[in-house]
């Protein structure tokens, strides 16, 4: 079972206490954007086999949304971080780089 540490209330929360919210850091384009941009935002996903960034909600706890970095091939959790950010913080990417040399995700390396 997955266990995440909620970055808001600090509790180690089981998967059953949380609700998955899909891929993180999706960019939503405003009025005037192209069909491709809307399609990309709505449907196209990285869906990596490996390191993945996701949104989760501590639904049976403090109720807050947060971000998590996790490996989809091993279920290893690299860490959790605030929802109020457009990309993963350096602490998290440093952990991933140490554990997964050569890792890249979208334009992050």
């Amino acid at each position: 079972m997955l266990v995440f540490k909620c970055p808001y209330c600090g509790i180690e929360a089981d998967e059953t206490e949380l609700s998955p919210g899909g891929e993180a850091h999706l960019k939503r384009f405003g009025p005037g954007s192209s069909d491709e941009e809307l399609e990309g935002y709505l449907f196209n996903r990285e869906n990596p086999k490996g390191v993945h960034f996701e949104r989760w909600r501590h639904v049976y706890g403090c109720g807050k949304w947060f971000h998590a970095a996790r490996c989809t091939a091993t279920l290893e959790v690299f860490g959790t971080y605030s929802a109020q950010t457009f990309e993963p913080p350096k602490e998290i990417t440093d952990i991933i780089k140490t554990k997964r040399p050569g890792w890249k995700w979208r334009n992050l390396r």
Partner: protein
Amino acid sequence: MKRYSVFAVAREALRYHQGWGRAWKSPEPKKKYDAIIIGAGGHGLATAYYLGKNHGLKNVAILEKGWLGGGNTGRNTTIIRSNYLQDASAAIYEKARSLYETMSQDLNYNVMFSPRGVMMLAQTQHEIRGYKRTAQANALQGVSTEFISPEKVKSLVPIINIDGPRYPVLGALWQSRGGTARHDAVAWGYARACSDMGMDIIQQCEVTGIRHINGQVQGVETSKGSIDCQKLGIVVAGHTGVLADMAGFRMPVEAVALQALVSEPIKPCMDVVVMANTVHGYMSQSDKGEMVIGGGADGFNNYTQRGSFHHVEETVRALIETFPIISRLKMLRWWGGIVDMTGDRSPILSKTPVRNIFINCGWGTGGFKAIPGSGWAMAELIAKGHSSLTEEFSLNRFKEGKFIDESVAAGVAH
């Protein structure tokens, strides 16, 4: 290929069964093929089979990184039905179901198709309305289904508890020619027929790269060397995103784990397939006597082929109320498969941004039932560049908003 028949069995019985050959060959890859299919699961093998049988394209290789039929083809609950709401879905699933009827004869391989009937329980007022609507839609589509009363449900499934209290059975959508088949045999039967046509099935051959120049596919890099091809079919279910990444495009697909479990074998007690969508569970009894139980999918991306305990608990908790008889059964085996979910829960059979790369994916939680129809349609798409069965399942539908919304129609796993 030696035909399997009662005479073959008699002949072999008289010579200590020394004469059975291998069902398919294991060749080394050639340098070049007219078409390569990545993925030797049911859908990939069926695609290759119909390429040869319907379109005369026989210089074909099927590449498989693991072993044949070792992915979702060997990990599903073997349910076959075609009671879908949307016309495009009903067309391809009914094509598949009708091909299952004669598959054993067509392939000369016993796939144990058992049209025992599939029942989808209506346990809320909303489901009654939904299934009555589906039954009407099916009548227009030429798919034989009917909405039946709780009493009829009880007579077909004596072990069911129709009184609730939490989940009373208020009726059901009944497809009498739905059923089950032996999943491994479907893959093996197609593999044997493909091999007989001279196609190369190459197992333990992982694709590591896809070569294309000027938007035109050239070939693939594999763990067994570089192979050229004119046309490439990607039929890899859960690993669609990984292969699409190699080809340089993104897909509206996410990989999640779907799990199932079987009980210890018991005497025959239920001779139909029962699906209960409100409580997220479905059950049938295998020929060995095991109760085969399927549950819901995880909500998060996952490439590990295993399930999670709380899903088992949720599924079994709900089913025990509907089938009190199973409360004392021990669970024997439990496994997960990686399914490829699309936004509208309908598959993608389509051309791609790279010319002559075709993709067949997105069957999500219900691919097994579609294997022959999917292969039939995909082969036509690869051979001719278009197919009436795949037209509405193209990738463009996500840009244009022309969804085939079966997630609303089916509610859950289907």
